């Protein structure tokens, strides 16, 4: 079945939004700090006005046509696990770089360390609905100038799945991240054609690509590492509060970034990473459980598709700081709405408190929520066999539906979701089993899964190469 079965925007509204973004790019333009890139864009027909580059429709159309050629991406991990991302797929990734974690033993919030990055990577290996892990955490025991390099290294070392690399925002680190990608891919292979993962790079909102990001892009995009363009304005603070206004701006920022990437290396696959979000406007604190997150992500899925991009969107998000009903409804709404609207890649595993606190238990719970969402996205099969007139006929003639081969057949082929973690029985059973809430079950599951995950040592030559890269990065960046 078609992946996009929910229309948040009509085709006409999509056209209007695209036109609004084109107008923003044509009339307001984008501040691009790199003079060389401005010059190259000028050569491709853009008007350069000081540090602002104003884009013409011709170039944007050319960029969009090129994006469409690169919208089937297969990521292959070192262990051979493949994740295909196409206009029809729905794959998942974890949140990245969360600054705090709820300790699995004490239940107290604390700063995460490298061991947490490793443990959460190993846990994510075992989550069946999680396709690509991020470095869920920001390790506090790693010096800041090499954190992104270290996160990338840990991901490649411990993940059995292709990785969704960290957000890269410094050119110094980008250089070593590229080296790590090349080392783990086996050196000679093209990262654009046979990628083992991707990274995210963010422009600044509104409408700015600072020098460090330009330089970061030059490293990453030139190397062909598939890149998610993460445009993340806060509605009402760094973008209009109106949802349509925020979307028009995000769409403009992503198209501008894609144009710059096109100039650098047109072969690098790009993802449409709308990260539009909102705040509690009374306090100014950004809160990620608002239903607008899901709604604008759904609209962004449609916009991405209209411009030929694969989409990479917010999914599981909550404001809740604990494992309560609010945590459940916020995560579910914000993941389900974009999933139904055709999102190709959705984020959010493992986070609470508006992406500011991570949790081992939440990773396991989010895997269950995604199981339900993937089941919904699979929809309903309607044909003569599923309609099963014979079963109904047999039942009205005194037959037992439960024992009918039709029932057994559909049960076995997964017509009904079978909870793996969630409670699936009645009150009396719940009492018998100790009145456990899902957090308790998740905790038990985390321990089991971590036991199951085996860590294999890297081949000796790769180990040596990786260590050399990290040493070189430390030597250069920690001066």
């Amino acid at each position: 079945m078609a992946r996009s079965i929910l229309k948040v925007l009509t085709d006409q509204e999509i056209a209007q939004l695209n036109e609004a973004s084109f107008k923003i790019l044509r009339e307001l333009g984008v501040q691009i700090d790199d003079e060389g890139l401005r010059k190259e864009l000028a050569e491709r027909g853009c008007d350069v006005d000081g540090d602002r580059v104003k884009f013409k429709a011709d170039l944007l159309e050319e960029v969009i046509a090129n994006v469409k050629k690169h919208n089937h991406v297969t990521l292959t991990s070192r262990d051979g696990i493949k994740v295909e991302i196409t206009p029809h797929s729905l794959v998942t990734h974890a949140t990245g770089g969360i600054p705090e974690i709820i300790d699995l033993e004490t239940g107290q919030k604390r700063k995460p360390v490298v061991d947490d990055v490793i443990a959460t990577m190993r846990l994510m290996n075992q989550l069946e609905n999680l396709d690509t892990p991020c470095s869920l955490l920001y390790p506090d025991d790693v010096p800041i100038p090499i954190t992104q390099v270290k996160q990338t290294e840990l991901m490649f070392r411990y993940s059995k799945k292709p990785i969704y690399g960290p957000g890269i925002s410094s050119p110094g680190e980008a250089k070593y991240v590229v080296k790590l990608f090349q080392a783990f891919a086996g050196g000679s292979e093209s990262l654009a054609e046979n990628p083992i993962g991707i990274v995210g790079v963010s422009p600044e909102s509104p409408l700015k690509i600072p020098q460090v990001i330009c330089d970061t892009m030059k490293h990453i995009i030139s190397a062909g590492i598939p890149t998610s363009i993460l445009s993340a304005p806060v509605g009402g603070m760094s973008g209009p509060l109106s949802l349509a206004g925020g979307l028009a701006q995000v769409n403009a920022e992503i198209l501008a970034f894609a144009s710059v990437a096109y100039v650098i290396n047109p072969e690098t696959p790009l993802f449409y990473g709308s990260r539009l979000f909102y705040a509690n406007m009374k306090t100014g604190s950004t809160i990620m459980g608002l239903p607008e997150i899901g709604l604008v992500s759904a609209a962004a899925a449609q916009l991405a598709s209209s411009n030929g991009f694969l989409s990479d969107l917010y999914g599981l998000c909550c404001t809740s700081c604990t494992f309560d009903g609010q945590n459940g409804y916020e995560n579910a709404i914000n993941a389900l709405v974009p999933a139904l609207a055709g999102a190709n890649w959705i984020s959010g595993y493992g986070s609470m408190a508006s992406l500011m606190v991570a949790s081992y238990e939440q990773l396991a719970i989010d895997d269950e929520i995604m199981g339900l969402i993937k089941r919904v996205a699979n929809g309903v099969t309607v044909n003569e066999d599923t309609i099963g007139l014979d079963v109904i006929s047999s039942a009205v003639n005194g037959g037992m539906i439960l024992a009918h081969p039709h029932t057994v057949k559909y049960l076995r082929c997964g017509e009904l979701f079978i909870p793996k973690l969630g409670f699936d029985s009645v009150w009396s059973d719940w009492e018998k089993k100790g009145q456990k809430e899902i957090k308790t079950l998740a905790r038990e599951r985390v321990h089991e899964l971590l036991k199951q995950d085996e860590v294999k040592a890297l081949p000796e030559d790769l180990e040596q190469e990786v260590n050399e890269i990290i040493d070189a990065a430390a030597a250069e960046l920690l001066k």
Partner: protein
Amino acid sequence: MTEARANPVLKLLDDQKIEQIHVASLRILQELGIKVDDADLRQQLSDLGCDVVGDRVKINPDLVGDVIANAKKHNRFTLTSRTGKKVEMNLETVVSHSSNAIPDIIDFETGECRRTNQDDVIATTRLMNQLDELDMPCALVYPNDLPAETNQLKQAELLIRYSTKPIYATASDPNTAKYLVELFNLFDGTDGRELIGLVGISPESPLYFPKAITDAMKIIISAGIPVSMLSAPLGGLSAPLSIAGGLAQVNAELLAFAVVSYVFNPETPLLYGPRLFFANMKTGCSILGLPETGIASAVGAQMALYYGFVSDLYGMCSTSCTYDTQSGYEKAINCLLPFLSGANYISGFGGLASLMVASYEQLVIDNEIYANVRKAAKGFAVNEDAFGFDVLASALKGGMFLAHPHTVKYLRNGEVFVPDLGFDSVWSDWVKKGKKDIQAVARERVNELLKKDEQESEPLSSELDKEITKIMENAAAEMLK
């Protein structure tokens, strides 16, 4: 300012697949038919061109077509509560109601699960008066301290006495139906169309209309009280396990119900209530938090739209027995799916544990979930003003988004959801405020709302009180012999 646009539309099935289910249901009705116990009714259906074979009535597609065409003429009505609150029901509205007759409740004081009683019906009804997202209450819990024979009637009486909103009653026998009509008639306006509520009636699955049900239907439908047709088979036990099969059967049962109603009174508005649900097939226990509940409801909403019926569907269902993350995600998914698919009437406020345990706190939490779902399913303005080109241009010149009139305007107009119960700040604030989960916040809210309802409640007029009491005495005298 921002004009509303068409809401998001979810189509789990395309039009051709919906048509395919319709055709399958017609075949079920024509080839298998329905079992009807009442010989007179069988004769009436035979007179309308149905084939009667023993106790089965095989319904021809032409009659079904006529019935559907007629039902479309009666899919718009207004309910008016005792206190004058109105609820419009038609294909463009979405209305919420609570779960019904749940046998156990989590005691508000002790937190222990116990049998429900009439005081719980009263307290939950009063709490529901104060929930702004809930349009109509059912008797959320089953008053176990009252006799079974008059229980449904008593539930309706308590709703009438304590609800300030229009009510959702149920009837499964003719005596209950008769006195329900009397109770409803107390609120008949001069034009005879002032409806205080509607009544849900269920046939048996698969495809069976027992005499008690058709007798109850005859009384309620003849009186012109809108009826929600509730077909509730359990997939794999009383309907095929395959969702499409279950839906084809449910659809056949609902169309048959509409045909029978047509015989009694073609003017009575009917609601399309597919309530297909599923079990944990290892244990046979029905569990309502499965996503298939929402999937079946979403397709049910599409089927209702296809025919032009107002739909009445499962919404916030959960298997979870506590206020945990599971209760949140199950309810959200199962409510959001039919909502996005064009449902008109959505159920589920107040239930936990697959609708077997009710909870005061859950009623309040469900009010918040419903608000979130409603916002997620609401369209947003896409036009020049909303694009906010000027605000962006001003920001690029050093202006502040936050202080711009455009921001203030959209903020005031509700562009971004403002949680009413849910936590809406950051971790440090959560710690400062006592690390409360939503159950704890809901608990405080329950107390506030019950107090508020006490202050606002107006006693029944003594005249009305007397009339209700008289009807109930007559009912008891007849039904509790």
